[in-house]
């Protein structure tokens, strides 16, 4: 994007109230995750048998879990995990999706057919079944989860990029580049992809939210992030076991997930509206 476009983007984005709220939430979560060692009142894996399942109090604002660990500290550290999973998984999905989508859109013909059939096949799987199978067979670990969520979440991106490229590749500046003798690789990377990135950016922001939800569901089922490493999902597993005596153990980690995912979704919505003025005009 050129400078003028960025400026225009900012002008529109600034007026999008929900988008700004989302930005605030995402920004805050970043800070909390980065400053986790300073902010968290306790060591998240410090076991204190004298204070098991204590309700929220001054000492433990969000209570303690079944091993007497401080829930607030575990949620703060769990946020780091969620953030990492979200970004790495989406990064992987983006690399695969942009690469395959660009190939399909630019080269067309049989390359396009093969890649898009592959996309169709991948879209037929109940994604959560596939993720579950792979993660469970590969031994659950944070890295495996990120790779698997990324490797099963790129299809939308590929379709988006392909559609963008189909419309961009006929434009004059691409023809001009070709006339100047630029190579395919150069045309794709320097001229087409930068111009096709806008919808991908939106999809990526929404993808972070989806990846965080998937990770928490996997951890909740016991095949995601493994204890003692705290993650919002595995705190909830503990919450489920003691739901009748300790509501705080289920309530707060779920709220953390909800607020985070909401933040990313609002941010994505804001970016979408700021990028696509056509939709915006439709709303006036």
């Amino acid at each position, binding site marked *: 994007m050129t400078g003028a476009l960025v400026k225009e983007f900012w002008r529109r984005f600034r007026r999008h109230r929900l988008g700004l709220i989302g930005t605030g939430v995402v920004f805050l979560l970043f800070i909390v995750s980065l400053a986790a060692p300073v902010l968290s009142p306790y060591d998240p894996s410090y076991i204190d048998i004298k204070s098991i399942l204590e309700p929220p109090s001054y000492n433990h604002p969000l209570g303690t879990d079944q091993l007497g660990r401080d829930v607030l500290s575990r949620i703060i550290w769990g946020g780091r995990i969620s953030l990492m999973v979200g970004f790495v998984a989406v990064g992987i999905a983006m690399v695969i999706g942009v690469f395959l989508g660009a190939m399909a859109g630019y080269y067309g013909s049989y390359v396009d057919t093969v890649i898009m059939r592959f996309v169709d096949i991948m879209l037929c799987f109940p994604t959560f079944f596939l993720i579950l199978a792979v993660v469970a067979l590969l031994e659950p670990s944070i890295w495996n989860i990120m790779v698997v969520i990324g490797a099963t979440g790129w299809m939308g991106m590929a379709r988006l990029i392909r559609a963008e490229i189909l419309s961009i590749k006929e434009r004059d500046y691409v023809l001009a580049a070709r006339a100047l003798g630029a190579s395919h690789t150069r045309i794709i990377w320097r001229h087409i992809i930068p111009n096709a990135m806008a919808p991908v950016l939106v999809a990526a922001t929404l993808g972070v939210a989806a990846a965080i939800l998937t990770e928490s569901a996997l951890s*909740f*089922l016991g095949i995601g992030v493994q204890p003692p490493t705290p993650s919002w999902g595995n705190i909830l597993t503990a919450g489920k076991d003691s739901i009748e005596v300790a509501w705080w153990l289920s309530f707060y980690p779920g709220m953390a997930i909800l607020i985070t995912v909401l933040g990313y979704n609002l941010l994505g919505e804001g970016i979408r509206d700021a990028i696509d003025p056509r939709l915006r005009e439709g709303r006036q």
Partner: protein
Amino acid sequence: MATYILKRFFLMIPIFLGITVISFAVLHLAPGAPTEMQTMMQPKVSLEARARLNAIYGLDKPLHIQYVDWLKRLVRFDFGRSFSSDNRPVQEKIMERLPVTLFINILSLVLILVVAIPIGILSAVHRYSLFDKATTLFVFVGFATPTFWLALLLMLVFGVHLDWLPISGLKSLNYEYLGFWGKVVDLGRHLILPVLLSAFGGLAGLSRYMRGNMLEVIRQDYILTARAKGLPERVVIYKHALRNALLPVVTVLGLSIPGLIGGSVIFESIFAIPGMGQLFYGAVMARDYPVVMGELVIGAVLTLIGNLVADISYALVDPRIRVR
């Protein structure tokens, strides 16, 4: 029309083969073998015994031969036998679970349609009204709510504190002794929470989608024409606009099937419902390859059928599609 359906049908065959190849590759390329799980607990098992077990399951053959063998059996609807100790045919195990999951998913699809479409229409027609703002808020919160967490909260409120609804299984202990209506009511009470929860995510998504469609259609020229003719607003909205806005919903429903089936793992494990999701979870954990394969393939085939039905019904109502 017949050519269209035939064409669509034949397009499904390579996709189906692709699905089986990917499922097979995912399972068999993962490290560790099912026989390891069965022999790990007994250190006395000799290498020969392990090799024999591998031979029984056909795991000693090269991968592509295993795949072809599996495919040959699949053509006769034989998914093989479960590796677990009951050693029952996979299709039998899946068939006793499938109706439960399908039933819950169909109920929740119906619920989604019945609730989300009117919400979408109303919030589009009364844009920026209080109702529109409230549903927009609901949609965003709905998108962001992890269903398993909501399930826990609802269980806590309705199951534990208020004690209105049962929180696990499909039947009460005294189910066998109830009369017909007693059974229906009992089943219904057990289904309320699971159906509500599996519909929750789709509810937010579809109502938003419907609103967007409706707004898009209302902008079109033929709506302007209809209004200019002096037709009452009711007719313009519910006849001219609604029909066109409803079309894409068919496709979206087809696309939502994998998500619904995948999501069944979560609430079936929370509510202890004996469906496909629970079977899948157990099979994955025990490395019961034939069952996992069978479920992946059946799940994908259901999606294929769903998409086919969606495409056909789309073509039925929209002549532009058939002509192409």
